[in-house]
């Protein structure tokens, strides 16, 4: 049995896989917190308990995500860049590009024909173009993250959000609300702005198939916004939030026997 733990900025995810085969034995997810080491450990125990697997049967654990170095039960760490690529390739063997939008990061990975990361880009010292942007907007409009997609879908005339910075974008949204713009137009505008940031970061040279991962891929409308901005079809990964943990588990299995 092999485990992958993805300690992301907003959630911790665990995936458990067996000795061979593509199937996932069990998985789980919990919100991130201050004591992430304990949270990750407890989550793994819970996932094991669900399936009746004993901890001693897990022969290797790989941690990934921004909190990877804090996960003390892990045997080793691998960056989420490599893990997402491996996880996506498992689910979509033809994938050539991965776009991952998480709580505080957005990344684009170009893969080679063997599925290895050829090149990647990620956001710098700025949260524009990440899930955090959507959280700020939802909060400002008194909505939950789950409301954003259906709301954006109702927009006929998305607002233009020009601020590069989440903090200034919030100010801009206040201005739009004061000017009487509808919430749906603002939400749709924010989705378009995030997609535009991703395209600016990625450049035009993007090879299909493009697979969308990370928590933000679960928000409906983001996929369409990205598709429009990139000018090519994008498929969200099945369970897009779990691909990093899946990749970590697969890499743990590849490393078997290494120590």
């Amino acid at each position, binding site marked *: 049995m092999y485990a992958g733990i993805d300690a992301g900025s907003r959630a911790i995810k665990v995936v458990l896989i067996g000795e061979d085969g593509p199937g996932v034995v069990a998985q789980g997810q919990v919100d991130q917190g201050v004591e992430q080491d304990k949270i990750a450990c407890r989550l793994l125990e819970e996932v094991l308990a669900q399936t009746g697997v004993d901890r001693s049967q897990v022969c290797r654990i790989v941690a990934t995500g*921004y909190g990877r170095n804090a996960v003390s039960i892990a045997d080793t760490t691998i*960056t989420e*860049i*490599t893990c997402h690529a491996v996880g996506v390739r498992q689910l979509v063997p033809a994938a050539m590009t991965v776009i991952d939008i998480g709580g505080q990061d957005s990344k684009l990975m170009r893969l080679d024909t063997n599925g*290895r*990361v050829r*090149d*990647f880009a990620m956001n710098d010292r700025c949260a524009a173009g990440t899930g955090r942007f959507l959280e700020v907007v939802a909060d400002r409009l008194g909505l939950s993250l789950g409301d954003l997609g259906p709301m954006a879908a109702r927009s006929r005339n998305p607002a233009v959000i020009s601020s590069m910075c989440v903090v200034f974008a919030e100010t801009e949204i206040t201005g739009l609300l004061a000017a009487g713009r509808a919430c749906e137009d603002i939400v749709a505008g924010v989705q378009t702005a995030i997609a535009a940031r991703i395209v600016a970061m990625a450049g035009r040279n993007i090879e299909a198939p493009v697979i969308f991962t990370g928590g933000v891929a679960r928000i409906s409308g983001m996929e369409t916004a990205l598709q429009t901005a990139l000018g090519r079809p994008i498929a969200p990964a099945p369970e897009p939030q779990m691909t990093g943990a899946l990749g970590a588990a697969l890499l743990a299995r590849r490393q078997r026997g290494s120590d």
Partner: protein
Amino acid sequence: MGKCCDKKDVKINASDPCHPPQPVRSGSPNATSRVWEPGVPVRAYQETPDGVITNGQPLAWFDNMIPNCLAYATDAKAQGKHIVGIMCEYTPRELIMAAEAVPVCLCGGSAEMIGPAEEHLPANLCPLIKSTYGYHVQKANPFLEMADLVVAETTCDGKKKMYELMAETRPMHVLELPQKPDDADALAHWISELRKLKARLEEAFGVTITDEKIRQAIRTMNRERALRRRLADLMKSDHPPLTGRQLLQFKSNISGMCADFAQYTRALESYVGWAVPTNLQGVNSTTNGGHSPPYKARVLMTGVPVVHGAERVVEIIESNGGLIVCMDNCTGLKPILEDVDETAADPIVALAEKYFRLPCSVMTKNSRRLDILRHLAREYRVQCVIDLIWQACLTYDVESYFIKKLAEQELGLPYLRIETDYSPGDSARIALRVEALFETVRQRACA
């Protein structure tokens, strides 16, 4: 060079407790008996509680570089010599030395100086310029406070305009650097700029700069460049005796100090067994790919200079699985790759020719930088290229387009561009990128 040798060696312990590292023969790396860790042999030096270094290790000497330089400059000043601040590798130190003055590098590497600088300078400016200027307004750089003259040059727009602010209160000579390196009249103009600098130094300090004095300074600088080149050569080995961070330490804000030369020589003597035999140079070796951890990816670092105090990114790279075997920037190989002709009939022309060939991104076109990178990538058998850009350094930032193309398309090497400043806020994010880069390198090496 004369007298300074007699008195400045005092900090070196006469009974040398230095144990030269056991040479690892490049032909037979023995991974099973010994896990190789670059730089291990030179870490063991001790400091007494009052901070005095009691061990004569060369690295310990250079860890003390600023106090060493300060003592040297203070003595020189007391002897009636002049101190000249410089801020770029285009400035020929030889002319200043020939004027019996001491050239001191003033480039700022401190994040703390950036706040004060932003009272006058825009926030969106490179941290090196801001830090250097911050020292100026705070009067916090003792070398700048000692300086009788500052020699600057028209390189990037940010520096050029910053010098105008600095010149309000300090004597300043600005060299006009032509920026089309392949034009014959550009070199002619650069020669005339150096002649003007010579005249300025003679007038300011009441000295006569003879050709013979320039030639003597050229010999000193050539010797320094040769010593530092040989140290850099050690990194060609499959198992370099130093980390890139340690190699970066082997430099001085004041050139031509005899005590430094003695330490460069000692370092070379203690590491010489590590040098890769010439018949193995150019062998594309991924032999250390067979090592169990710690596997180190061989990194070619290019881009902006990494001045004293601003080594954060270098340290991040080397603590996350990389070994910087080669730095082509202005604090690395770029200024020491070529020497000045000691026998030229007109030494100023010889100086102009050498210095004008520096491949800085302010030049257009700067194809010489690409030529050098091609050569270094091969010589040092690098596995990836990391391009460091100080935030708002427009020329290096734009030029990264060509470096990426060269690395990925021509050399077939993974490329990573890091844009940052002196503040540590993005260290974790930079670590993530370099770690991911090295995972790619490892996958390739194992494939």
